[in-house]
């Protein structure tokens, strides 16, 4: 589904990604791990199409189609979803209004009519229940005054509503206590199926106890330096990142 071929990327002329290749198939869960500043979030941004990040070399395709020239919203229409590490606040725009707008804009891009209100309400109710979200929460302004856990839960709620082909979870575990973490992971697991794929970006192995990856990749200094199975995550938890560095030398 997602093919990343030898991607180099920079931000403000600083090279961050230095030749990353990654192949993700439908039905798979990939974990991207690595120390601070290794390029994990840059990888997420470059897939999602954030403007400040410049792809200097390489290719990103989704189902064989090159997306590197597409705007962020066009990539979203192709089924790319990014769960933000720091979701932004939009005062005065309710969670419901925001997700309604997003769904209808995605439908418009596909040439579909707006989703009928009754269907929208039904879907909102279903997904809110799935993620144990209080209905009152949905009428609050987007992310305004939300706790860390509420923000992340809201991200996964939007993912549930938009049903993306490829979901990238950028540090979704940061700022979550263990109960919130379980709810979020549980939600992701319920949404996972054979037709979509998930990339989990995380510092810690903790989240991977709940969202179990098929593959684990370690990024260091803008490159994937080691790939493996779930086992690799345990090793990292135990030994830290230094031993990989030593291995590389």
């Amino acid at each position, binding site marked *: 589904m997602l093919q990343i071929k030898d991607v180099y990327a920079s931000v403000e002329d600083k090279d961050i990604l230095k030749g990353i290749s990654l192949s993700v198939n439908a039905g798979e869960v990939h974990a991207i791990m690595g120390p601070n500043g290794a390029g994990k979030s840059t990888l997420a941004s470059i897939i999602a*199409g954030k*403007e400040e990040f410049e792809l200097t070399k390489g290719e990103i395709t989704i189902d064989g189609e090159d997306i590197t020239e597409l705007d962020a*919203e066009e990539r979203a229409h192709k089924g790319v979803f*990014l769960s933000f590490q720091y979701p932004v606040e939009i005062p005065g725009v309710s969670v419901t209004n925001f997700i309604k707008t997003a769904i209808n804009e995605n439908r418009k891009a596909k040439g579909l009519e707006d989703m009928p209100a009754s269907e929208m309400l039904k879907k909102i109710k279903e997904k809110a229940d799935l993620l144990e979200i209080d209905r009152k929460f949905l009428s609050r302004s987007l992310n305004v005054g939300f706790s860390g856990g509420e923000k992340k839960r809201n991200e996964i709620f939007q993912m549930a509503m938009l049903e993306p082909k490829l979901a990238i979870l950028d540090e979704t575990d940061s700022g979550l206590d263990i109960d919130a973490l379980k709810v979020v992971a549980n939600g992701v697991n319920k949404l996972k199926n054979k037709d979509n794929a998930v990339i989990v970006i995380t510092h810690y192995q903790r989240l991977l106890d709940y969202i179990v990856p098929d593959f684990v990749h370690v990024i260091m200094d803008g490159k994937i330096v080691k790939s493996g199975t779930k086992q690799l995550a345990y090793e990292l938890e135990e030994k830290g990142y230094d031993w990989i560095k030593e291995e590389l030398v």
Partner: protein
Amino acid sequence: MSKYTEDDLKKELETKEYEYGFYTDLESETFPIGLNEDIVRAISKKKQEPQWMTNWRLEAFKVWQSMQEPDWANVNYTKPDFQAIAYYSAPKAVDPNKTLDDVDPELVAMYKKLGISVDEQKKMNNVAIDIVVDSVSVATTFKKTLSEKGIIFMSISEAIKEHPELVKKYLGTVVPTKDNFYAALNSAVFSDGSFCYIPKGVRCPMELSTYFRINQAGTGQFERTLLIADQGSYVSYLEGCTAPSRDENQLHAAVVELIALDDAEIKYSTVQNWYPGSAEGKGGVYNFVTKRGLCEKNAKISWTQVETGSAVTWKYPSCILKGDNSIGEFYSIAVTNNYQQADTGTKMIHLGKNTRSTIISKGISAGKSQNSYRGLVKINASAENARNFSQCDSLLMGNECGAHTFPYIEVKNKTAQIEHEATTSKIGEDQIFYCNQRGIDTEKAIALVVNGFSKEVLNKLPMEFAVEAQKLLEISLEGSVG
């Protein structure tokens, strides 16, 4: 990455033309330019006014001659040459005795372009409409339905003739002729406007609406609105404004006076979309308006305004809270883009006991525009237990615009409670990217953020106006993030 950048968007916005910028070729009767006593007399004569009205105008003219154009507002413009303006212009086909069916077909076509077909107005529910083109009122609908309730809704020219006792009693009582330079000018030369009287205890069953349009070149528009809500009555009143796109600046100096007697309530909403000038700052309407309301005991006046048009705006809809327990409210959204300048706000004058006022002002600046909030909350010694809450929020787009806040507070009674909150924020790239990532394009994202920002005020507008205002905000700001 070759992207459709914000610069591209900006360009697109600049070439986006003002939707109401057309000119309708109506056969008009326009007075020669310039202003002197003879012109004032001629206007009065043209309107077949009684002597007392002519004298009132002449008095105002004398006052005006002794006054200076104010320059304390935070705006910069070439002062109009008051001798280069025509003070009266009327579409010729207007005859007060004609019915709507006899209206000049060109005029009807113009209403259609404005989205307010008079024909449809007749069938439309709950909005009675008065339309003022250039200087005269051309059509007032629903007169009959209203008169059954004893409600008087007509042009002010008609009211001067048909209800002189009411006009004489209230005209100039809230905004005296010598109140300010533009109010004095308006008092001397106003050519039309709306008059409304709601009798005791009557709840006006529909929204009353006036639609103002400047059509003729080189003319000023000076309309006068007088609205009286008698004891225990209620009325919701709307006004809308547009003008053709012209390279010259056109002057609009209106006066609106509201009188809410004991236990009455007036809701006054404005959607102002006068021509804002070109993207280079050429042309546009100078909007110098005095609006004020007087509240007697337990009365309430609510001003709601959505200001998106005009090159220069100077406008402070205010409330004099004279009666005990009276309430004044001001809800405003002011949008400036390109080279527009707005200096707008309100005055809440607390005289009575237990008077309350609320001010919610939302300023949105884009392009190279300047947007100022100027407000005065004054608590007199007599105003025991007065309360005020003010909130002024500014939203900036790009790096070349400005937002300013000038809140004045004068308190002469120790029991007063005053709260003031102010915020300034910028539409962030992060907000836009977040929306983009969810499949929402940049224009729609800006609209979403702006609507969220303006929501508290938009919610105060009557439903049908809220939708229009929301659209207007989107058009005014499309692609202006930088």
